[in-house]
């Protein structure tokens, strides 16, 4: 700087320089807007369509009122079945996910190829949605809730396995070193220093994915894999909107109850 400038002027000038839009900013913003417009065009999202759609959707929800409460008598069994599917889906997910998660955790498994294999398997299970797994298992073992539980188990096993591995990797390494120093074997160190530390995380994840499982299980019925989804699809296909309303309210009640229950349990485990 040649001439002495008052400090305020200097700061203001610096601010102005920061604010000035560079060419690449403008180009970036234009590209982003163009991309979004292209996406909107691809999915038929136009202001006029949207304006037309909203009243239509409102009308369909309006048709659901008043809910036809008598229908709930038919729904008890599929509603409970939904929860059973979620429960067993979680059990199967633990059975699949725990060993794979342990194998995928870098501080537990030393062998890099073994770790990579476990991770690849977890990724495969995770990336393919439970609905696609359900289609597959329905083809394999027939219609019903059983393939639904298997589908949830395989997909959630992949998700939980990865979360287990992360929980194990994030534990405090101090006690692990301390137990190794006593001469304890590798497996003993895992059992006595690693698992106790990661256990609360494991339980939290399982509770959360049980909630998610209930929500997912409500739609498995669409592909014939059991639960309340079958009734939901049927009422919608038959335009029995007042019955649909009852199904939706029941799902809402179910998920809310389980949400409350798991919050209650979670507060108790630490």
């Amino acid at each position: 700087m040649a001439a002495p400038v008052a400090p305020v002027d200097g700061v203001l000038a610096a601010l102005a320089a920061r604010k000035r839009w560079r060419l690449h900013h403008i180009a970036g913003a234009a590209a982003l807007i163009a991309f979004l417009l292209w996406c909107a065009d691809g999915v038929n999202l136009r202001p006029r369509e949207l304006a037309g759609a909203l009243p239509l959707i409102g009308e369909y929800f309006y048709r659901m009122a008043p809910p036809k409460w008598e229908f709930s008598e038919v729904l008890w069994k599929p509603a409970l079945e939904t929860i059973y599917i979620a429960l067993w889906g979680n059990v199967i997910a633990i059975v699949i996910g725990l060993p794979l998660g342990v194998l995928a955790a870098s501080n537990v498994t030393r062998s890099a190829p073994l770790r990579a294999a476990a991770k690849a398997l977890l990724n495969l299970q995770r990336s393919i949605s439970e609905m696609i797994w359900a289609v597959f298992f329905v083809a394999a073992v027939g219609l019903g809730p059983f393939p639904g539980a298997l589908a949830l188990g395989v997909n959630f096993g992949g998700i939980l396995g990865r979360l287990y591995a992360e929980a194990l990797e994030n534990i405090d390494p101090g006690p692990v070193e301390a137990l190794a120093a006593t001469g304890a074997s590798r497996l003993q160190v895992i059992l006595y220093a690693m698992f106790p530390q990661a256990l609360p995380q494991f339980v939290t994840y399982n509770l959360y994915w049980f909630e998610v499982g209930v929500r997912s299980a409500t739609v498995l019925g669409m592909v014939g894999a059991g639960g309340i989804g079958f009734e939901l699809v049927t009422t919608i296909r038959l335009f029995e909107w007042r019955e649909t309303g009852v199904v939706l309210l029941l799902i809402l009640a179910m998920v809310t109850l389980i949400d409350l229950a798991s919050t209650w349990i979670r507060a108790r485990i630490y």
Partner: protein
Amino acid sequence: MMVPAGHAVEPSLSIRGLSKTYAGGVQALNNVNINVAPGEFLVILGPSGAGKSTLLRCVNRLVEPSAGEIFHNGAKITGRRRGLRAIRRQFGMVFQQFNLVKRLSVLTNVLTGRLAYRSIWRSLVYSFPEADKCIAIECLARVNMDHKAFQRADTLSGGEQQRVAIARALAQQPKVILADEPVASLDPKIARQVLSYLREAAQELGITVLCNLHQVEYAREFAERVVGMSHGSVVFEGSSLELTDDILHRIYYREPGEEEKEEA
């Protein structure tokens, strides 16, 4: 200076020409030679980064030395991978951060000191034999923590946690305890208490102690013999009474390479 108690009898621990260079090229230890007499309470004094921690970890092979040998009661304990568990079992370790498994009870934490003696099958169901429980409780009583045996470890204060950690090391029925900055995270009153428990238990059971410290006052108070370390080398060896200002300056403020000049 080189005629301490250790020379009359065979040393419990003999460290010869020990060097360690880490993968990143940092040299933590440079040709360290130390003899430790059986039952001795040896303090290794030095600033942080002097290589004290690496030295202790080389003894129980949490760190593999790059060169040199360590003998325990005349038997070589470096080099072979076989029998590592049996070697580690003889060395109890106490850490700066206590390193208890926080969600387990105090008693179970002490019992983990017995794991190396037991088969994996029994450990699988989190069960210990009665004899191990007796040993664990006695060790807890030695550090006066038996009244809190069933509390979870994370409910204890720092000083109490370190006492439990000492009990865990004692439960191994070790020949040697390696204490790595055991009181660096504790306030002075609690620190003295913890060091007293450690010294008392070791004396009664005839355990040799190698204790890393960076505070001179504790070294003066508790050490029978002091080894001063600086930049990975031993720069002093003698009784704590010999710790003059000049020597302390050599331990704490020496620049790397100065030693050679002094000796020249």
